[in-house]
């Protein structure tokens, strides 16, 4: 299992609901959550062999900003 940490501009619960089906549909994603209390609105994903680019593309196509954060 790997951990992907991405910065987004997903601001509220309504917007989380917009992206939720997209993320839930990904079989490789075991668990995900978005930290709405933090300025960076971090999308945290626990997944198996999932590339960050795939997620970035997914979220970007839904109309949001998304960028991977590295250690």
């Amino acid at each position: 299992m790997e951990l992907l940490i991405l910065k987004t501009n997903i601001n509220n619960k309504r917007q989380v609901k917009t992206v939720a089906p997209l993320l839930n549909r990904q079989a490789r994603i075991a668990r995900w959550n978005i930290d709405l209390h933090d300025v960076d609105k971090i999308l945290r994903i626990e997944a198996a062999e999932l590339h960050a680019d795939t997620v970035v593309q997914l979220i970007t196509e839904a109309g949001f900003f998304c960028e991977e954060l590295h250690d």
Partner: protein
Amino acid sequence: MRTRDDNKIQAIRAHAVEMIVKQGFDGFSMQKLAKAAGVSPATLYIYYKDREDLIMQLWAASFSAMATATLKNFDPSMSFSEGLRVQWLNRAKYCLKYPQEMQFMEQLRHSPLQEKALEMVDGGFKNAMYTFVNNAIKKNELVKVQLEVYWSIAFAPMYNLVKFHLEGQSIGGKKFTLTDKVLHETLALVIKALTP
């Protein structure tokens, strides 16, 4: 999977408590914490699911350390005066050593996270406190009053002396240092007040 680095976690905890105490929950962000602790924001999310998870884990660690310190050499079957003395010394020592942790726990108790925090508390500490009080009442060493009254008389005086000490001054800016003598004098009065 990335490995856990205990030194990093220690640094993150220490900086988080300091930041929350100095700037409050509103002024606390993962980004600021990452900068202060010398890690990347991504690293924080390796250890914590989100901001709230971090705060709750901090609370659990602080509470558990406080409870362990308070229960050191304490036994709920002790006589009331001896048990209270042990607790006073333990609690005062802990507060003086870790004032920021105490302040942080106090802040959390006054935040919307309070309810969640209370759910996380391990029952062992609470049980030890209840058993001690019930025993003391049964043995007729403690007056029967409601819990809030008991706590306010039994512990609030000690916490207030500690507060004066940490601020370095008491009423009207008078200089104050908490000595063993003052602590024991106050404890004697508290025991007197609570003895039937």
